[in-house]
């Protein structure tokens, strides 16, 4: 059974601090996705990581992928309140017809 595990599940942090969200997965894959979801809203694509060693940055968020360790990280630098949301990682497992498997999500609250 393919598993995608995120930790922490809940994260409360002060503005200006740094933190990392981890996403571990159990299958061979070189495609990893990060999404953001605001309460009551749909999912918004943040990053698409398509190879080992891929690193992408957008504003205060940076995502990386290590396919050998089956690990992706989402690093938050100098958090601001607007980053409060739930973040999901998803894996596109090989040979599954474009099926995505999602982690359970990390609920981030940034405290002013």
């Amino acid at each position, binding site marked *: 059974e393919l598993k995608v595990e995120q930790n922490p599940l809940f994260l409360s942090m002060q503005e200006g601090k740094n933190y990392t969200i981890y996403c571990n997965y159990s299958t061979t894959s070189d495609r990893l996705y990060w999404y953001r979801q605001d309460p009551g809203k749909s999912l918004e694509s943040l990053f698409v990581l398509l190879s080992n060693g891929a690193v992408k940055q957008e504003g205060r968020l940076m995502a990386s992928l290590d396919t050998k360790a089956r690990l992706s990280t989402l690093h938050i630098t100098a958090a601001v309140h607007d980053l409060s949301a739930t973040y999901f990682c998803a894996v596109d497992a090989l040979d599954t017809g474009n099926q995505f*498997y999602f982690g359970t999500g990390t609920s981030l609250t940034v405290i002013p």
Partner: protein
Amino acid sequence: DAGITQSPRHKVTETGTPVTLRCHQTENHRYMYWYRQDPGHGLRLIHYSYGVKDTDKGEVSDGYSVSRSKTEDFLLTLESATSSQTSVYFCAISEFDEQYFGPGTRLTVT
């Protein structure tokens, strides 16, 4: 939003009644997906389609059926709704290695 709409956006129904949710896309995407989102589970794939009349089961397909008679429409049917199918349902399309999601349908089965 990749031209994806879902209808209805909210629905309350009684146990045992049939329910059909519609996903409509305007950009001729081949792949379409239905997910459900529940607290503590993230998103889980119900069914997906890779073309007209071509569908396959996902991780949590029991109790659900789908149909795709036109490229633009992907229907999800709950033949006899149960309380365990209370959830938020998202449709998605796939384009260039990414998936884009519709606005969601909140379904409550009483």
